[in-house]
């Protein structure tokens, strides 16, 4: 996969990507989002792109301050992608390999799913951030252990908000990218099937 596309989102949406709770609520199909040791995230998602449907678990880990690497596998296939944002966060580039059933659905379709998911995720996060306050907690359990997490890996809490100003900014970007990668990589929530 080699894909670049424009993105536009308010700062609040990017900021919200730092919060696994918000990501979990805004990302279609997310069943668990948790912080991983070392600043990344662990994810569990019910993928639904075209007729490729099923669980996927993986990790999002920082590559540098503008990029994350997404690695994981599930019934739907395997992913090893680098998601890179440009400096002003107006474009995303996704590069890497896709294997298994997801790889068979066609490049254009996969690209479209990636692009739509990223756009939808940022829009949802933006709406949550600037729209009317949402009182009730999200149904997706934020700190629930990720099913496919390696044995002995404890689930972590949400990303700590603010440990030094400069540090905080970098973390935010990474978290944003990590969260975005979640969105980028995974499709919309499974609609009801016709059959």
């Amino acid at each position, binding site marked *: 996969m080699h894909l670049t596309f424009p993105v536009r989102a308010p700062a609040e949406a990017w900021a919200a990507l730092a919060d696994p709770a918000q990501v979990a609520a805004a990302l279609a199909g997310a069943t668990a989002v948790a912080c991983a040791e070392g600043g990344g995230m662990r994810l569990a998602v019910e993928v639904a792109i*075209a007729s490729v449907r099923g669980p996927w678990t993986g990790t999002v880990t920082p590559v540098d301050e503008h990029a994350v690497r997404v690695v994981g596998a599930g019934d739907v296939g395997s992913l090893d992608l680098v998601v890179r944002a440009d400096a002003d966060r107006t474009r995303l580039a996704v590069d890497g390999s896709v294997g298994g059933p997801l790889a*068979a659905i066609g490049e*254009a379709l996969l690209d479209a799913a990636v692009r739509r998911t990223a756009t939808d995720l940022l829009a949802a996060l933006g709406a949550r951030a600037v729209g009317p306050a949402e009182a009730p907690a999200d149904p997706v359990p934020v700190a629930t252990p990720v099913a496919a997490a390696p044995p002995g890996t404890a689930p972590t809490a949400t990303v700590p908000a603010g440990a030094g100003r400069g540090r905080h900014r970098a973390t935010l970007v990474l978290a944003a990218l990590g969260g975005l990668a979640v969105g980028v990589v995974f499709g919309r929530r499974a609609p009801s099937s016709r059959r």
Partner: protein
Amino acid sequence: MTTKWFGQRVERREDQRLLTGTGSFLDDAGHDALAAAFVRSPHAHARIIDIDVAGALDVDGLVAVYTWADLDGRVAEPLPLLIPHPDLTHPRTQLALAHHEVNHVGEAIVMVVAVDRYVAEDAAERIVVDYEPLPAVVGIDAARAAQHLVHDDVPANAAGTTTQELGDARAAIAAAPRTLELELWIERSLSSPLEGRGVHARWDRADGRLHIRTSTQTATGVRAAVASILGLADVAVDVVTPDVGGGFGTKVMHPYPEEVLVPWAAMRLDAEVKWVEDRYEHFVSATHERAQQHHVRVGFDDDGTILGLEVEFFHDTGAYSPYGIVLPIITATQLPGPYRHRNYRVTFTSLYTNTVTCTPYRGAGRPQGCFVMERTMDRVAETLGIDRAEVRRRNLIQPDEFPYDFQMTFQDGRPLIYDSGNYPAALETLRDLVGWDDFPAVRAAAAAEGRTVGIGMAAYVEGTGVGPYEGGHVHVETNGRVVVATGLTSQGQGHETVFAQIVADELGVHVDDVHVTTGDTRRMPYAVGTYASRAAVMSGNAVAVAARGVREKALLIAADALEAAPEDLDIVDGVVHVRGTPSRGIPLSQVAVLSNPLRYAFSKEAQAATQFATPADPDVAPVPEDAEPGLEVRDYFSTVRSTFASGMHAAVVEVDPETAAVTVLRYAVVHDCGTLINPMLVEGQIHGGVAQGVAGALLERVAYDEAGNLVNASFMDFLMPYLTELPTAEIAHLETPSPLNPLGIKGAGEAGVIPGSACIAAAIEDAVGVRIDRMPISPSELWTLRGMGEAVPPCT
């Protein structure tokens, strides 16, 4: 005395199945397969700027969406150039899915796979392709003008130009006492089989085998192409042709993009995938044919003898040229017809246009050639005031002039040499059959009733049975059942019947004991295909030689068992017996048992072939040297060149004085396809061909607008005749055996269609007295012509 089956009117054994709804066509299998649909170009010529498939994501049941970018290896390369030729200087073939550019309305751009066809179509509808339209080149005039190019790198839109010449036509015309020039057109049409194309593929991962069912005229052709493109071993690909609801040429084109893409997707998705062409798709993506413009110069003497003929013509090959320049080669080489040419020069250019690609449609270039030659004969007759039949008679090749060598190269790359025929006899037979000489009285009687009638005739010679070869496998099973396989396919011709007749005679068995399979690469991996009126000639002779091999083998084994000499044996009604002693015999079923020495018996009868059953010569191996176990032989028939069938048609038409509607009152056919295997089936072929010929003359045409939109792409607008609009052909057979094959057969499949436009144009011209130089002709066109056309003097 055993029954002779060859030459009998044996009823078609296919019909029970086909006429009672129990045939098995492409769409009768694969009900649980994923379904494919295609996004096709709405533009005749355009650059593809972008393909946005996002909308398809909202369609439940979508499985995959493929564009050219998904294709890998050779699947991404242009499809094969099927028939290269040295004069095809600028061949172009299409990509399985269009990449940067589309070159005709209907060219496939995106393949959608979904749980069923409805879902696939819904998803395809939501895919948005962004185009930059380019100027479209539509029609021969535009292609010749070359103001715009179909392919940027093909100058003058010319795929290729070639010339062939017998004698010195230009000098002969220059020296001729009389000359004429004609401009003659035939418009575009298409095959329109009742069943469109379709492909069903299943990838067996465990066995590493790809199983393809496709509605094709060449199973082995599809197999070779798909295996090659997908990088599979030939033996890993099986292609099975189910019952095919008509082909008429368009299904000999292969591999169509879908024939590559469906198996490719099946492998990629590890799932069964099926695509069945709908009627619109057939109009805009199955191949067309026919459109040609011809310029004729003819020199002749005062008796009507043709002294020189020069023809230059332009062939519309559509957007691509996978079939090379075979169609115009056929026109060029079949144009001379049954006439004794000494000086003939033909030049053609095959032109690209932004329309559907052209490959053979029943007749394949011959209807155009026949139209040109026969319209020319009519003009010569008119010029001299000589009866049209008489002018033809004076020019016919005589029976003692065969083989007649035109010193040209035919479509099979072999010399254009007519092998046999009796054209004067055909003409006389036709005159009697249609009452040619009595027609003035018919005309007068009609005129007295205020009716306008006319008569026309047209003759043709058809090269049939082109090589390179076909094979036959004949196997007598231990139950006495004779199973026969040949690799070419069937589209309703009746192969199961006629090949069974041939084998039954060769083996001395009842025709009902012979069971024929066609178009299954598992049974006969080497074959060519069903086209060019070749099946009966090639496979008919192949199964005959294979059956003769089986007979020889059976006699050897039976001779041993009966303690007789093989030459003293005969096979009658499935029993090998000593001539003159019917009681001393052994059934073929038992010979089949003995042909396969057994360690282990599998039935009571098979015990006879086991090691302790009979005393054996200790010095002879159970399977002697040069022998093979099993009462079966696979053998092949190949031919040095085509065999030339011939015929003459005559039509009597009535033209409505007000509406100019044409009714074909009578249609007479004299037909010579060599020895007849089954006269009833030949007549069936003629009736079908005549229907297509009349339709091609009066109704069927593919109409493009200037932008390259196919404006009559449905059966609402593309007119096919009802049975009630067709004449019943009155048929007379001649049988001039071919010296080129053991059975003396010539092909019969396409003949009926060839002279249709030529003889109906002549009949209309005779009726209304205006020049007809362009076919097909509609009532409105004739009405207009009648008002302003060039008047033709009444025929004598």
